């Protein structure tokens, strides 16, 4: 009787060990945070593709500069409209564009080109609403280098976030 009970206890302990191992392994074998990883990648791919297609068609030259290479007045609004037209409704963006120059010491200085905010989430003060980005589940930052026809090197910093991804 005692011997049978011992056997049963041993078997139960062994089974529990194996079961707990399976339980823990299940969590280990699951890809960590699959939706998170995928959406982040997709956002970056989307952002780069958008900037790349604009660059391929000289979109930056046409949107920002006039035919003599000078920065257009109020180009930010037009730029925002164009970017907005490519954006799915659940993606928010905030774009800053910098003109790269070399200072006297030969270091690169980035001078911000856009005087106005280029974003589809603007607060009541006309600034990009950072709170919305903070609340969004996914945030990605993309840097893109573009050389214009007039040999200006600009750096586009684009922040994207996917609303409702959490």
């Amino acid at each position, binding site marked *: 009787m005692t011997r049978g009970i011992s056997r049963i206890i041993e078997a139960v302990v062994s089974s529990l*060990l194996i079961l707990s191992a399976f339980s823990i*392994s299940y969590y280990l074998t699951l890809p960590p945070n699959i939706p998170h990883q995928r959406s982040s990648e997709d956002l970056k791919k989307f952002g*780069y593709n958008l900037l790349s297609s604009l660059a391929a068609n000289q979109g930056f030259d046409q949107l920002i500069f006039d035919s003599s290479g000078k920065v257009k007045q109020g180009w930010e609004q037009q730029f925002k409209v164009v970017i907005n037209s490519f954006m799915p409704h659940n993606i928010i963006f905030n774009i800053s564009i910098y003109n*790269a120059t070399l200072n006297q010491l*030969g*270091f*690169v200085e980035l001078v911000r080109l856009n005087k106005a905010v280029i974003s589809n989430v603007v607060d009541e003060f006309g600034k990009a609403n950072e709170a919305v980005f903070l609340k969004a589940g996914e945030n990605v930052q993309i840097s893109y280098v573009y*050389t214009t*026809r007039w*040999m200006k090197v600009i750096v586009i910093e684009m922040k994207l976030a996917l609303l409702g991804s959490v």
Partner: protein
Amino acid sequence: MVRRKRKGQLLIFAGVILTLLIFYIAVTVHNTSTTYQNLRYEEVKEIVDNFNEDFRRSLRYILAAMTQEYNATAEMDTPRYNAFERFTLWMKTAIRTFSARGIQVNFTFNKVLLQPQKLLFGKLNMPARYVYDLTKLYWYSPQSISAISANFSLSVPGSGFYGWKGQMLVLLNMTVYVNSIENDRQLGTKVTITLNKEYGEPIEDLTAKNFKISYFDKSTSKWENAKIVTLLNNGGGNYTIYFKSVNDKIIDEPYNRYIIVWAVDNRGIIVESYTYTAVEYVIQENAINPFYPGVSKPEEVYALEVILNGTILWFNRQLAFSGTYPPIPMPPVKQFRVYSTTNGPTDPNLKEIPSQVEVWTSNYLVPTLKFAEWRRRFSVGDKLVFLLNYSNPGVYQQKVRIEWLWDADTPPPTYLVRMNSTGIYVDIYNQRYTLRLVPNEGFSFAIDWTFSMYYKNYHVEYSMNGIGYIGIPGGYWIPHILPAGNWTVLVGPIRAVAYRDTSRTYRVEYQNGYKEYYDDPGPFKHTEIALIPYKTKYWQLYNDIIWLRDHTDGRYYSYLTMISGTSGDQGSPIRISHWAHQMTDLSVHWGTYSSSHSTHDRDQNFLYWYAQYNYNGFGEAVLPSKGYVDSIKSLIPGNRYEMWIWTSADYARRVIDCLAQRFDTSGTMTIRRGTVISWFAGVWAYEGNGYSEPNMYHRMFVETYFPTIVSVSAAL
């Protein structure tokens, strides 16, 4: 008891082993999964794509901007500097931007072969062409290339991505098929062209707007833009262009074959091609070998000038030739190099000879302040000057090849002539003699000279266009009037020029002492040009006078007077001791100077040289042209011309006056308004010890014996 214990432990032991196995598998799978997730492949790919695309884009724009700047300025240093500046900006911006993403980038400029050595059209030997130092432009030949290249290596250590090495090459290559050029009676001249970009990819999207063709218009004697009648895109980057003259006319043979083609592709990159690569002349000297056959003539060096229409000038006179000249094209002037034979036209060795391009007025008569400006294209008014040597015994013909180099990085020629300003004087040193100019107004007093030529240890002064005389206590002051005005001196690599073009004159009067006046306008307008070639024994002098009003003065009119001797060298052995001049029967009349005031010779039978020399290694001579002699003998009616050789009362100075009006105190002379006097001459320095050198070389300066052109051809 022991047995039971063992059996129970076995089950638990088996369970532990299985558990460990499961954990091991789970951890391995987990690691594999997380490693895959951490590769972040997608972002690296996108960043590298951005890098690649914009690198290509920036190189394309840098090359386009560089070709456009060079095409506009004809100067390479600034476009190359700008190209490096632009590249540096892009490189540093890229490094700054991408390094924030964990990317490491390095850039290098490797030497990249663009095309191997080849024989173009079966005739033109083209060496291998490379791109290095970021960009290279190979223009001005039937096959032209604009190229830019840089190498990079890229690593993303955070993703285990190391050592991706890449090379970016952007180019435009144009070939103009020279043999395809032919005239069509209706459509005009036909030419076939091929355009490729990097990796041999044909350029298919060009229209007539992408091309410009220039041809040499014989009627205007300059390069004109042709009218492109039609352009056929034959596919594969091949285009056929039909073009006519600017007046919509067929361009005659052979000028239809001398064309310049520019192409700019839709990326903005320019190339420039010429259908010929050189012009070759055979030039014959007629001044010495016919009279001294087989004799060495080391000083027979001509500073010849080629102008845009291909003609060659000596003393602004076209060398005689009965055929058609290929025009000289219009690359940046720094591209020109001149080669000549040394042992006659069959000599296989062509050696580079000193040359430079000078900028004169459009009629080629007066130099401009841009005299030796090399940041420009060869154009109307430009003279390509080169020094052609016939020194070897018996050599009377030489082949001359004028080439325009293909490499746009070709530097301008180095300066061989030096100019010094010493005190109030301007001295021009040609490595053999120094020509001193009369000081600017206000720096000298009682002037009686215009030039002074220093050679070895002595010098002779030259008074040019001296007119009239004034009475002074105990004698006369000669001349009364001289041309005045400050000299403009321009120095080029192999020839300097000093010139004046003004109506200012200088007048000396004696009223209780010498008084000097500058009259503007004076009685005549005058243009004087002195050309000082590198390392020759001569300088060239042009004088053009037009009298603005009737002028009556004492009887004395000198063209070019030699005066030597100063207050400090009286009795010195370095002084001139002898005079000589050529007679009209080509014999020589010579004599010695005295140590006191006296006349040694008054002679109307003078001809093409007069000289002062000693037997201590010094001599100088004036070598007048035929125009000089003819003019001086016809200016004043009544045969009043004369060569007057005399020793002055002041310091026993030695003088040879070559006079249109002999010095005569018995009356006056009047020069009429509108009288034009135009002459040129050479002035020669030598080692003295007689007069053999001026006697031998003087024909170089006499029109009848000027060089002639035997043949001219354009070379592929």
